């Protein structure tokens, strides 16, 4: 033990000595380089004479920065980098994941559960609105949509560019049926899902003979058709004006969030009137819906149907040779994905209180698809992280008012949203071509569960 510590010490002593030496050398070189460039400056004085200014102080700063920088690099940064690299390789060898990594999803769910009360504590009831609504709910809607689309694109490998159509179907189902017939949210939520799934099937039947690019184009067209119908069928949808005054959801009919209702949540609990309670309720609602999506996806992956989806992504012809009816398999993927889109849509209508065709443009489909691809197709955790980064990041841009101080008062950072979004996508795709989580968890194992590297999985062609 003493020998080891001795060698360590002597190595450390050597290192410091070497760092000192190299630092001094760097200082001398910097002095030689900069003495004429920085130390002396030629300028004209008021009588147009050439004057030599001496700037020994600035030169000293340059030399000290070079010397100290070199010393720190050699003595501390390099060894620590090497140590980290060694530690990383050792960690790979041990394949012992940290506690945080192993329980990431549990920790994340716990954090989300305490998120609204935490925000209320930090920013007050009114101040928490922004954090719960703009960040929390907004991100969770996209997480849920991306998880729903993940079933179609990530698992079954069917490129769907019109996913927002099902979102629209869900939103309008709730908006119109609740206004026309006065059904409550809790009745219409499953109904919206069923209707969206139904539309998924209607789209699926003619389209699923197509593959790859052709499928993508037709789903894109389907998304546009739904939007154009919403715009032009004015008697029912009120066209571009949209449907407004959509009733709010209630806590299973026990407490209402309508201000005039006798069982208003704030009144019952004797709290000051605020819309924050409704938003917090919506936060938990979308959290529950998103977790339901994740739970169903995880369960389905271990069912024969889920395995058939993934097999379909890998090789459709092989699937057919094994007696799998690929048409019904694709249809189930489409309609289950669409169903979650419908759930998210009806939630969207409840949250906004207003829906119009403008909310369901192609860009939405593209963003959802981008989140799925960036997250790593098929990986729930990766997709959630991608949604936080992409949607949270763009929301965060709105908060960056300090940028106005740099770029002038007319600068509005949120206008650069799509630019940064695109840039981020390019960077992520170069750095991690398979998305944040490129590997895939096997659904069954004999001895040990080994993640399948992304280089073996396919993206699907149909």
């Amino acid at each position, binding site marked *: 033990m003493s020998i080891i510590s001795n060698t360590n010490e002597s190595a450390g002593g050597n290192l410091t000595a070497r760092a000192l030496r190299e630092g001094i050398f760097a200082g001398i070189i910097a002095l030689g380089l900069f003495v004429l460039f920085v130390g002396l400056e030629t300028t004209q004085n008021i009588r147009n004479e050439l004057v030599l200014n001496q700037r020994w102080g600035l030169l000293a700063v340059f030399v000290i920065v070079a010397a100290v920088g070199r010393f720190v690099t050699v003595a501390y940064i390099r060894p620590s980098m090497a140590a980290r690299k060694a530690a990383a390789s050792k960690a790979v060898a041990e394949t012992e994941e940290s506690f945080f990594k192993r329980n990431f999803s549990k920790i994340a769910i716990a954090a989300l559960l305490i998120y609204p009360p935490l925000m209320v504590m930090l920013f007050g009831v009114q101040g928490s609105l922004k954090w719960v609504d703009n960040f929390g709910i907004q991100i969770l809607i996209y997480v849920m949509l991306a998880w729903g689309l993940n079933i179609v694109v990530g698992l079954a490998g069917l490129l769907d560019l019109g996913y927002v159509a099902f979102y629209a179907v869900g939103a309008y189902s709730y908006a119109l049926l609740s206004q026309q017939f006065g059904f409550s949210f809790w009745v219409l939520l499953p109904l919206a899902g069923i209707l969206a799934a139904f539309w998924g099937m209607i789209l699926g039947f003619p389209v699923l003979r197509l593959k790859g690019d052709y499928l993508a184009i037709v789903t894109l067209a389907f998304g546009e058709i739904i939007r154009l119908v919403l715009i032009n069928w004015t008697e029912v949808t009120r066209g571009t004006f949209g449907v407004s005054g959509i009733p709010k959801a209630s806590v299973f009919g026990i407490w209402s969030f309508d201000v005039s209702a006798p069982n208003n949540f704030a009144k019952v609990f004797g709290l000051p009137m605020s819309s924050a309670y409704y938003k917090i309720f919506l936060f938990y609602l979308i959290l529950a819906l998103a977790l339901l999506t994740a739970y169903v996806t995880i369960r*389905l992956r271990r069912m024969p149907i889920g395995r058939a989806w993934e097999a379909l992504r890998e090789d459709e012809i092989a699937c*057919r040779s094994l007696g799998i009816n690929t048409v019904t398999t694709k249809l189930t993927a489409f309609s289950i994905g669409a169903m979650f889109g419908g759930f998210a849509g009806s939630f969207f209508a409840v949250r906004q209180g207003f829906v119009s065709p403008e909310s369901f443009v192609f860009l939405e489909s593209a963003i959802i698809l981008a989140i799925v691809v960036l997250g790593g197709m098929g990986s729930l955790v990766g997709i959630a992280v991608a949604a936080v980064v992409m949607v949270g990041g763009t929301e965060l841009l709105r908060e960056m008012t300090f940028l106005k101080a740099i770029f002038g008062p007319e600068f509005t950072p949120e206008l650069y949203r799509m630019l940064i979004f695109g840039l981020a996508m390019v960077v992520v795709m170069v750095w991690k071509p398979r998305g944040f989580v490129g590997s895939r968890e096997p659904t069954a*194992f004999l001895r040990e569960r080994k993640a399948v590297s992304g280089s073996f999985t396919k993206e699907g062609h149909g």
Partner: protein
Amino acid sequence: MAPGTNTMTNDPILKVEHLSMRFGGLMAINDLSFEAQRGDITALIGPNGAGKTTVFNCVTGFYKPTMGMITMRQKAGKAFLLERMTDFEITRDAKVARTFQNIRLFSGLTVLENLLVAQHNMLMKASGYTILGLLGFPTYKKAAAESIDIAKYWLEKANLIERADDPAGDLPYGAQRRLEIARAMCTGPEFLCLDEPAAGLNPRESLALNELLRSIRKDSGTSILLIEHDMSVVMEISDHVVVLEYGQKISDGTPDHVKNDPKVIAAYLGVEDDEVEEVIEEIEVIAESEGPQGGTHS
């Protein structure tokens, strides 16, 4: 040489009658008729472009034949007209499984998962088309455990049990071939169609493949139809050989018979059409001088 145990009793599992397949102006198969006996290993051989894979695709429903009838008769006596069924129905209902010339595994799924996907229809039924399975009914749990046992059985047979949890795309070529056969067997077929199972295998792997095919026939009672170029495999294990050239059958019989058939030799050695007669005469002369046992296959 494996004796054709069932060749005497005429009990064809597959009967191909007057099969023709036309691609535009090309007659890929022209009025082909042959039978595969139950419990036999039937080989389909012929030079490149003879239409072997086309026959396979017609039998397994990947092509719709232009003309002809393909009858598959199961052990229980139920008959299926394969030319009227789509590909996945042929595997699901008629119990005909196939492999591919260029291996088609689910490379991103593990070896075990590949075999579980093959048991899709059985598991779907057991899981009440997913609904009962989602609710956690015990029937599905039992079926899932059974399916893993079946997968284990075939992994052991194909000597892949050590690699069960690795991605299929990570396996070496020979192992991928064996896995594809094991996967086809997991569908519980009565008739197994193998498209060049020995292509790209080294001699040792070829031997292992022969063993696997023999044990499949012996233990599962599955009849096998195979396309093969590797004569060491064909002559070693097949009970019955059908030779195709230009979409037509030129010879049909036991390996010994086919081996000595002058038409087959001419087809393989590539003789001009007008020279065929001469070659046949020459061969007959040689055969006479060497006696009935003579005549080696090229």
